[in-house]
């Protein structure tokens, strides 16, 4: 089966005064029809840039310098402007972290939905308006008819994200990329938004790419998970396997730093150290300096040669310790 969205060896670099920052450096991802793919990682792991790259939304000075992105068999990177605008918002759509600043402050939220409908469909203003109102209804905006002419500053963060979801799902896209959709929201609202996303995507058969640092959200929602570290995918597998049998030392570290409900942990173990700076990236395995496994096994190769992505029973992993064992 070919995947709906397929990213291969993606390289997105930023040219800065201090040199080239390889924010995304050889990422492979697959999104299948209707599934939920979680992309997890700390901030700075390149997960947001990966998400933006998928729709070629990376702004200057960032640039996609290598790899391929295929949607439904078509090469996204070689699309012209027109093909790209037809893809965006219609077949693949996206929502972001700060919903209130993602809505245009001087355009009513209603028009921000209808303009999308009119851009992609041959539709009258009246139909567009009616569709927009029913969309606002379906994402749980009360009094949708009246809120149609509201502006972003009149909405709470949660409502704004609901509007963003209404915009993103207005045309029943086949892929929705959600970049940290709940991070900026109140904890109580987060669950509602996640539930809304799950419900609507399931209803429409839309595949959801959920970019987050929150393993709890991933556990709840995702079918498959890709773990990113320093611009690369270090492990990719289905969600059960990830939580029951994490392979990569970084994944293991992430999981053990997560509190488990109903289980009183004496102490949460944080991963020592920080994500490496782009300016002094470890030469081989990027996680090596923080890796407990490397230290306990006394492996030298981790500092000499970069590990390759290795196929496992249910996914893939990028680690010398696994490669050596198998």
């Amino acid at each position, binding site marked *: 089966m070919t995947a709906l969205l397929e990213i291969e060896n993606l390289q997105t670099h930023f040219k800065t005064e201090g040199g080239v920052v390889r924010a995304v450096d050889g990422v492979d991802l697959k999104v299948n029809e209707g599934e939920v793919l979680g992309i997890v990682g700390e901030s700075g792991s390149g997960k947001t840039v990966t998400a*933006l790259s998928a*729709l070629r*939304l990376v*702004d200057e000075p960032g640039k996609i310098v290598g790899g391929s992105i295929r949607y439904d068999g078509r090469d996204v990177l070689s699309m012209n*402007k027109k093909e*790209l*605008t*037809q*893809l*965006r*918002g*219609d077949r693949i*759509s*996206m929502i*972001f972290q*700060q919903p209130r*600043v*993602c*809505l*245009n*402050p*001087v*355009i*009513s939220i209603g028009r921000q939905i209808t*303009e*999308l409908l009119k*851009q*992609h469909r041959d539709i009258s203003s009246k139909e567009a308006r009616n569709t927009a109102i029913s969309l606002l209804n379906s994402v749980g905006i009360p009094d949708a008819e009246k809120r149609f002419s509201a*502006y972003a*500053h*009149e909405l709470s963060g949660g409502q704004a994200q609901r509007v*963003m979801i209404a*915009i993103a799902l207005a045309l029943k896209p086949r892929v929705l990329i959600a970049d940290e959709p709940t991070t900026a929201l109140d904890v109580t609202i987060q669950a509602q938004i996640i539930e809304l996303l799950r419900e609507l995507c399931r209803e429409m058969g839309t595949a959801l790419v959920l970019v987050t640092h929150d393993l709890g959200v991933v556990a709840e929602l995702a079918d498959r998970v890709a773990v990113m570290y320093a611009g690369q995918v270090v492990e990719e597998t289905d969600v059960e396997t990830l939580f029951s049998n994490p392979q990569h030392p970084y994944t293991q570290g992430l999981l053990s730093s997560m509190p488990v409900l109903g289980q009183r942990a004496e102490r949460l173990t944080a991963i020592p150290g920080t994500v490496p700076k782009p300016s002094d990236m470890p030469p081989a395995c990027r996680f090596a300096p923080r890796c407990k496994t490397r230290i306990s096994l006394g492996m030298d190769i981790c500092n000499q040669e970069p590990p390759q992505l290795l196929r496992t029973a249910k996914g893939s992993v990028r680690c010398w310790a696994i490669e050596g064992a198998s």
Partner: protein
Amino acid sequence: MANYVIRRLLMIIPIIFGILFLTFLIKALIPTDAVSALFSGTVSEDKAAEAIAQIREKYHLDLPWYRQFGIYVWDVMHLDLGESVRTRQPVIDEIGFRYVNTLILAFSALIVAIVVGLVTGMLSAYFKNTWIDVTSMSVGMMGISMPAFFLGFVLIFIFSVQLRWLPVIGRGDFQSLILPALTLGFIEAAALSRVTRSSMLDVLSREYIRTARAKGMSESYILFRHALPNAFLSILTMIGLQIGNLLGGAFIIEVIFGWHGIGELAVKAIQWRDFTITQAVILVSAGTYVFVNLIVDLLYTWVDPRISYEE
């Protein structure tokens, strides 16, 4: 919303009083008494003294200053701007049609400035750091360094003297309006272009522009419907300020092109020491500027939905 408008209207009152007071000073502070200057040497001493006494009384020059000011304010409120010291004609008659001419010139120049400034500023921002940007910013830099009167002469030299396309001296028709409007418009377009560029650059880096891109909106739609309305807030502020420059600049341009506006009159009036005319022209222009700025401020409420909710 209503609160904002009322507060904005109340703010005008002290400003109007300030303007009245400053224009009043033009009469009150003139060091050589214009009245006696006007008569010296032209008539016999006796008659002059009598006439001076009459005129002093007529202009209330013998009253204490605060009463003079009171009378001045009272007269202005009744649209009585006095009569010209020199021609004895009511000032209103002298400046009426000239005021319209000045407005025509300033308004035409404003259109030129907005069209040229917005287009070049937007192109510069959109094609940041390309040759388009560099060229338009360099020309803009020259524009803000160019004295309006010199640019006027350069345009007259090219289009009237060399090419003979347009008249050298104003005849009051549309053809005579072209060069002065272009001169004044270009000068102001330079500053407007810079503001447009920087605010567009700011807006284009905002998240909602990325949202619009992610929605698959076309680049021109994003530029005009998403970016421009947001950038327009700072552009509008600049336009408000520039209307002052346009009114003032029109004074210089009118002299160069022989355009019969209030500026041309005011410059002569200052040289002739015709204080009533000077006073009236400055009062009317400052009043116009205050009024225009009021309109611009009220426009904000229409352009920016956020304002009505601010305290």
